[in-house]
């Protein structure tokens, strides 16, 4: 179950501005999904190791050597507001 207040809180954490309609719809919609996924809490999995990587690779390392990277102007090409040497954003404000 997830209620209206929790939906608004989670939306804030996720930086999503919800419309009034979404705020109305989401508690019921998400609760139905959560009811289904909460079924896994009924399983007794004490002592089971959680999967962190399916193939079991560990510590993939390489030499720390400088290599070519994307030129700055190429990386900035797709920015909605590029400054000469960075991404421009408004002030974080108060």
């Amino acid at each position, binding site marked *: 179950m997830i209620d209206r207040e929790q939906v608004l809180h989670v939306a804030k954490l*996720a930086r999503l501005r919800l419309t009034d309609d979404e705020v109305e719809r989401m508690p019921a919609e998400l609760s139905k999904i959560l009811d289904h996924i909460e079924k896994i809490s009924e399983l007794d999995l004490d002592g089971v190791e959680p999967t962190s990587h399916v193939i079991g690779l560990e510590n993939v390392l390489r030499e720390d050597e400088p290599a070519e990277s994307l030129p700055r102007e190429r990386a900035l090409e797709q920015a*909605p507001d590029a400054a000469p040497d960075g991404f421009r954003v408004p002030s974080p404000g108060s």
Partner: protein
Amino acid sequence: MTDPALMTGARAAAAVDAGELSASELFELYRARSAAEELGAYLWVAEDAPETSGPLGGVPLAVKDLFCVEGVPSQAASRVLDGYRPPYTSTAVRRLIDAGATVLGKTNMDEFAMGSSNENSGFGPVRNPWDETRVPGGSSGGSAAAVAAGLAPWAIGTDTGGSIRQPAALSGIVGMKPTYGAVSRYGMIAFASSLDQAGPLTRDVTDAALLLRHMVGRDPMDSTSVGLPEPIELPTAERLDGVRLGVPPELTGEGVEPGVREVFERALALAEELGANLVEIGLPHSPHGIAAYYVIAPAEASANLARYDGVRFGPRLGDGDLASLYEETRAAGFGDEVKRRIMIGTYALSSGYYDAYYGQAQKVRTKIADDFRQAFEQVDLVITPTSPTVAFKLGERTADPLAMYLSDYCTVPMPLAGIPAISLPGGLSDGLPVGIQLAGPAFSEQRILDVAHALEQAIGFGGAPWQRVGA
């Protein structure tokens, strides 16, 4: 000579190599057809093909919009990436181009690969060429429809919970999800990083083997990538003598509609005639796969999609402070399903809920992988239907997200365990294709392709839309 439009990719590549077919004429045939298509399969079609050389003979390739291709729109079918043209090419596409493929176009998909019907695209749905009132499956729905309709000889897609295999099944073609890490994820727009894998969608099993052969390999740009023990060979097997196929009641019984079960049982009988031994095996935790998946995938997605904030790429909305820029850009850019998954994932990872959701789901994942490990001590491969139903009607499941999620019931356990699986057409139910799924242990791609090839010959599937159009 055979009509070039009726050739598989491998056959066309061989014809180009033998000087019987011009690569540029073949490209023009598919380009014209794709530019004029009305299924909604493509989001972008190339105007011309660069010169290529290599074993793939310049045969045109349809590429899911999830793959970055330098200078070409690569939007993951999301409005939040509207107009994005990446400055680099994904490793999977790069390797295929280096082997002689030419990029024909970018195919439609569910936004950020979140969906099972292609109805979640930010650019409109895709129609199934077998019946245009039905969905082609998803999320690689555009790639599947393009191959099935003869708009491309072959295509690539990505699979997180079934997004290659399920649309392949619903569209009557072959689709393969390799072992996690077999194909580099570099330049593949991330959905759920512990699950995402690229793979081929093709007219037959041989084409799947040929594309896969050129896609796989360790890539320094993806530290989770691993090399296969041997190069993929084109399959030639016609018999299945001594092959042990495991049939799990959990994925073949309840919930599988009767028409699908009938085709599946016919495929089992054919496998036995070819010499295979059928063994009942248990996958007792697989029924919990959907629940675990719909914690893990949204949790990882909520983190991966944090980067779409209107700062580095895509459109920017909001005037005022930085927080409203983020919030308005994301509110306008993401569709309903993507928002739902970001909400579920953020909730599941939020303080106080982590252990109950994500932690528990990762334990379920361990149990699902253990089930497969035990099964593979008794059998070589596991066989199931790919989808519990045939292609459903457009709009049929859009109002009920949970019903949509259950479309992935038979395909979700394999990516949770990281193992490879293929879907091949098994026959028709009421005129609509049914997929048969074969799954094997990690790095058993060759075995899967060989068995799928033998089964494909015995099934003799025909009458697909691409076989009816011609040049």
